[in-house]
């Protein structure tokens, strides 16, 4: 069905421009009022959620006219979903789905971005989107972790590509494992057998590669017998929880983000943050843990003919209401000595770190531009550090901070938890 299934949604676009901004009652002034990095950077209406729908809808009717500028529009979107939330405050229509479908269509038609082609070629060849040096499971050497392919575990910990291969990000996987060990959790890893979840291939527009990856990986996960999968990567979380569900791979696998598991462990008294952290922090909601991390809703129905854009059965929209917002905040607030302040754009209307949608690979300058905007917002709170729950966010913020010569620190939540226990 592809893009066609969203023709009705795209026609609903009233061109109100709400998708450019955070929800109106949350706008606190001209600073930090934009929700969409793409329109904020590139200015032409085409770069907004609505503009993308207007173009896709017109092209469905009149034929696809791929130009360099159009492809610039298509690939310079983090697929962060902020437009969906702001639009769906008032409207009943899909926004992010048709934007994503349009990108799939470009890839199907061979209108790709060379940088993304390269990343996906690497995935096909090496099983990872990243340039890998060493083996995937190297980060776990000396930690004495259970091998889930050999031992039965309750929880399977998925480190993800970045935390497995990137020398800076490996500390997150290591620290997570150590915290889980301290809490006495029966968990294991897949080590060298761990795979890429496929999320980033999906975001880049390569649906088939994602599907192949998901099928292979789920077969392996199922083999381990683990009932719960935990990951500290927001991209991975979104893939396992939402995309694997959407394409019927997930079945009854419970998917948790490390922040959710930590919040649970703290509540149960299995993790006891006692040591003072003494830091003024703010928290950045990763798009794919926050608004896009809300459960997928399976639905099939037909438009009811008549005066309204309504369906039988009623169509539920993923409006960002049920994203994972509180567990990370609960964890942060439970750490002794932490002073916590919110930024202007939070939770469902959070500003993207810039790394998503393949933008990291295809246009690093734009990706870091978005991260800098977030760093400025964090600094405005008076915080000494910005905390996130995704290695991609942390990587982007670190680069932005360095380029800005800022003294702001960036931490993943696991690093702070480890300091407190």
């Amino acid at each position, binding site marked *: 069905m592809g893009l066609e299934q969203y023709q009705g949604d795209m026609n609903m676009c009233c*061109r109100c421009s709400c998708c450019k901004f955070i929800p109106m009652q949350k*706008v606190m002034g001209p600073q930090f009022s934009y929700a969409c990095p793409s329109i904020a950077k590139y200015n*032409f209406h085409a770069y907004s959620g609505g503009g*993308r729908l207007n173009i896709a809808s017109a092209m469905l009717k009149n034929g696809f006219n791929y130009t360099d*500028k159009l492809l610039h529009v298509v690939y310079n979107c983090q697929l962060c979903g902020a437009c969906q939330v702001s639009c769906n405050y*008032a409207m*009943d229509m899909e926004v992010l789905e048709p934007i994503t479908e349009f990108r799939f269509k470009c890839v199907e038609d061979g209108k790709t971005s060379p940088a993304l082609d390269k990343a996906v070629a690497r995935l096909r060849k090496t099983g990872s989107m990243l340039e890998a040096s060493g083996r995937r499971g190297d980060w776990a050497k000396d930690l004495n972790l259970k091998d889930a392919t050999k031992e039965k575990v309750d929880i399977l910990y998925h480190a993800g590509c970045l935390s497995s291969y990137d020398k800076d990000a490996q500390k997150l996987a290591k620290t997570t494992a150590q915290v889980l060990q301290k809490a006495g959790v029966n968990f294991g890893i897949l080590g060298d057998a761990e795979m890429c979840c496929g999320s980033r291939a999906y975001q880049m527009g390569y649906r088939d590669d994602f599907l192949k990856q998901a099928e292979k990986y789920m077969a392996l996960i199922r083999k381990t017998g683990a009932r719960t999968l935990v990951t500290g990567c927001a991209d991975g979380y979104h893939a396992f929880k939402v995309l694997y569900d959407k394409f019927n791979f997930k079945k009854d696998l419970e998917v948790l983000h490390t922040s959710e598991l930590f919040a649970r462990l703290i509540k149960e008294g299995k993790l006891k943050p006692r040591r003072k952290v003494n830091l003024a922090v703010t928290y950045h909601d990763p798009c794919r843990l926050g608004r896009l991390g809300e459960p997928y809703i399976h639905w099939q129905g037909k438009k009811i003919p*008549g005066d309204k854009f309504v369906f039988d059965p009623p169509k539920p929209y993923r409006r960002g*209401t049920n994203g994972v917002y509180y567990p990370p905040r609960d964890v942060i607030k439970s750490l002794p000595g932490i002073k916590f302040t919110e930024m202007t754009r939070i939770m469902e209307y959070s500003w993207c770190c810039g790394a998503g949608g393949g933008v990291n690979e295809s246009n690093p300058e734009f990706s870091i531009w978005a991260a800098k905007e977030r760093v400025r917002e964090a600094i405005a709170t008076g915080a000494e550090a910005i905390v996130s729950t995704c290695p991609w966010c942390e990587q982007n913020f670190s680069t932005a901070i360095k380029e800005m010569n800022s003294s702001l620190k960036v931490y993943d939540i696991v690093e702070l938890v480890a300091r407190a226990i």
Partner: protein
Amino acid sequence: MAILSRDVYKEFEDVVGPENITDDPALMPSYFNTEHAAIVLPGSTKEVQALVKLCNKHKLRFRAICTGWTGMFPRGIVLFDLRRMNRIIEINEKNMYAVVEPYVISAELQAECMKRGLNFCIKGAGSNCTALLRGHGHMDQTTSGDDRNHLAIEWVTPEGEIVRTGSLGSSDEWFCGDGPGPSLRAILTSAVPPGVTPGVFTKAAIKLYHWPGPTKFPVVGHSPRYTLSHIPPNMMARYYSFPSVEKMWQAEIRIGEAEIAYELMGFNAAMVAANITTCNEEDEAMFKRLSREVQGPGFFIIIAGNSADDFAYKKKVLENIVAEAGGKSLKTVEDPEIEGILLCQCIRISASIRETFRPGGAFNSIPIMGQRDLTIKWAIGAGEAKKPLIEKGLIVDDGGAFFGWGVEHGHLGKTEIFCKYDPSNTEAKKAVEQWQKEQTARAFKERYFALTMGDQTEIGPALSNYHIWWQKTVKAIDPNSVTTESGPLV
């Protein structure tokens, strides 16, 4: 095929830079599905001026837009998207005005104003639109509306001259629209984007008003159900229904005389339902519920006191007036959660997206200006004419209702009625257009001023032949006919 030759394109590009211009046909559909000669993104008044001069040089028509919700866009124009001109230049607390560039949206300016105990007129088009938009809005009772709120303006004329009107024409001050300095009110106040600007407004001063509410609303929850953690002190929102239109009007006029309403919005039950619900299905159920709860036509009102005593006084006066007119408060709105949603929705958002576009994706409206009790009578007729369309299932059932409000606590105001429908249903579209045409014609015949009235040559003779003067004026300020006209003119 590119409309501009590469040489001409280059001239425009030299003004704004290559990243701020495009004539790529693939991007055009995001700008109203029309073939434009080019889209340009000027970043300053100087750039606007240079672009306008180029348009004159090459006899190219142009039009400027802000967020660019709607409008008419003829083929081949150079479209100025003012997105880069988004600075609040000044908020002058002492003299109570704000100076903004065109792409400052109302929500941004209002948030800044509220921090300073000030507010301004958020137009009905919504706080997602430019703050310098001309028009009326929910808070007209206290923030007035339309051209009454424009002070000095910086205007790039259709020939590319920069004109500073009002006090700005003789000093660096923005406090007055009419002098000392050129007023040009008659020409300019129908001209704020996205109206019929002959030329481009690059900055404008907007009148600010006292805001008795909080510096920011205590919004909690998640989209799409934002509520208030508590009703701010000395504020109250209610919906009253009345046994008859006459009784409702009696209450409205007396509330105006008493000057107690911060906002009085002649909502109907359908609009209340739309505003407090998060999807179409919920909306439909809520409308049925409210239709059973109301006794007749009604209005939504916000009372805001400057102190507890002031609030108590206003509340008491309101209760007396409503009681004498036989009004009944809607229990649903008395629920603090719903009351909070409406308070924030009607003051901070104003946009009626939930009540206009959400159901079917389109609506056609007839707004008429004038004395409220008379325009209400016209609207009753237009509402009756809607009913056959509702019965046929062509438009959304809102009970045939209309809405409206007074301006500056007075008896003059705006009354409006619309039909919501699915524009892909050609039968519905045709029927709605026919309804709009007939009811507009009836308004004109009965000597009401409807914003949907037709061509100036058609209505001009009934309005002192203003169109002849207007055309002469336009010819004088736009000798090369480079500006486009669209939307209401008068």
